[in-house]
């Protein structure tokens, strides 16, 4: 087992609200400089910059997990962090099938597809900032169907959090954890693991919040075991 320090919520230039500087190699470079051992890429409702960031990470020696920050129809943000590229793409297909609208770059920002060298290779035209038609339960079900970890994003924020939208965390949701920015708010059940991550939209924010995991390898299943605190894996506090 080793201590793996992870930032599990980082946007790339694919998210309309993120800076163009958030290219795959730049994210990986800054992540390494900040002493992170593992990052997860979670753009809004899309995983199209994941593969490039995974490759950039392989070149530079930083483990990168594929994920998405999925918006439910109640406008709750949920992080899905997946075991492999195929799972991530399959979940993305489900989200895309329930996501309407087209992006207006002037209003919301550009959605840049980048390669592992950081070059723009295209644009995504979907309204990624919008809400999917999937209920919160369906979002979590979709994440789990493809073996992912479902973490309720920034539960202590006044917008787009499960608590702001739904008042409290419904029982039996099956969340694998909650992400907290500063203080764990009242009403988060004791048995829900808490992670801290940056939700970085700019390079300087990467690693500004992080979580330590005691795991055998920096993979999604290992992080899952650490969240559950089983087989010697755990969150490091």
């Amino acid at each position, binding site marked *: 087992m080793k201590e793996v320090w992870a930032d599990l919520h980082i946007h790339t230039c694919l998210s309309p609200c993120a800076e163009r500087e958030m290219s795959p190699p730049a994210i990986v470079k800054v992540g390494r400089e900040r002493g992170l051992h593992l990052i997860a890429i979670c753009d809004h409702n899309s995983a199209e910059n994941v593969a490039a960031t995974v490759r950039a990470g392989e070149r530079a020696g930083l483990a990168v997990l594929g994920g998405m920050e999925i918006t439910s129809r*109640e406008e709750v943000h949920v992080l899905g962090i997946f075991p492999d590229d195929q799972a991530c793409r399959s979940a993305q297909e489900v989200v895309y099938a329930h996501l309407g609208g087209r992006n207006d770059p002037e209003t919301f920002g550009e959605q840049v597809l980048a390669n592992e060298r950081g070059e723009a290779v295209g644009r995504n035209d979907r309204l990624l900032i919008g809400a999917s038609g999937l*209920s*919160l339960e369906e979002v979590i079900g979709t994440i789990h169907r493809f073996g992912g970890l479902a973490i309720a994003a920034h539960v202590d924020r*006044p917008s787009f959090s499960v*608590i*702001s*939208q*739904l*008042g*409290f965390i*419904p029982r039996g949701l099956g969340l694998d954890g909650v992400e907290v920015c500063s203080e764990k708010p009242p009403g988060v059940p004791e048995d829900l693991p808490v992670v801290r991550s940056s939700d970085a939209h700019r390079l300087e924010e990467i690693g500004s919040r992080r979580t330590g995991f005691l795991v055998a390898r920096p993979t999604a299943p290992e992080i899952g075991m650490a969240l559950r605190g089983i087989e010697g894996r755990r969150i490091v506090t």
Partner: protein
Amino acid sequence: MNLSEIARKLGLEVRVGQDALTAEVRGGYASDLLSDVLAHAQEGDLWVTLQTHLNTVAVASMKGLAGIVLVNGREPQADTLEKAETENVPILVSPLPAFELIGRLYGLGLSGMRT
């Protein structure tokens, strides 16, 4: 004014909670953020929203609201209906958009302000 009267006057359809329609409606509250409803709605309010999630029932029950009206033709989810049945929380639906429905409720004498 009770919920049954309001439903009749505005053509609201009752999806669940037929037995609780005689309760007095004392005012109205409109919001789609359940945290906001928990913080600001008052007992006896009729709650106008487009949220169909299961949690709406718990919020309405906790705050002692007179009922929930879903706007824009939205329908409650199956689990929401089931919970509302158990909790005896009326859920009504209207094809009207929120602005229009709230205007008509106001016209009937319901207010969002309590003195």
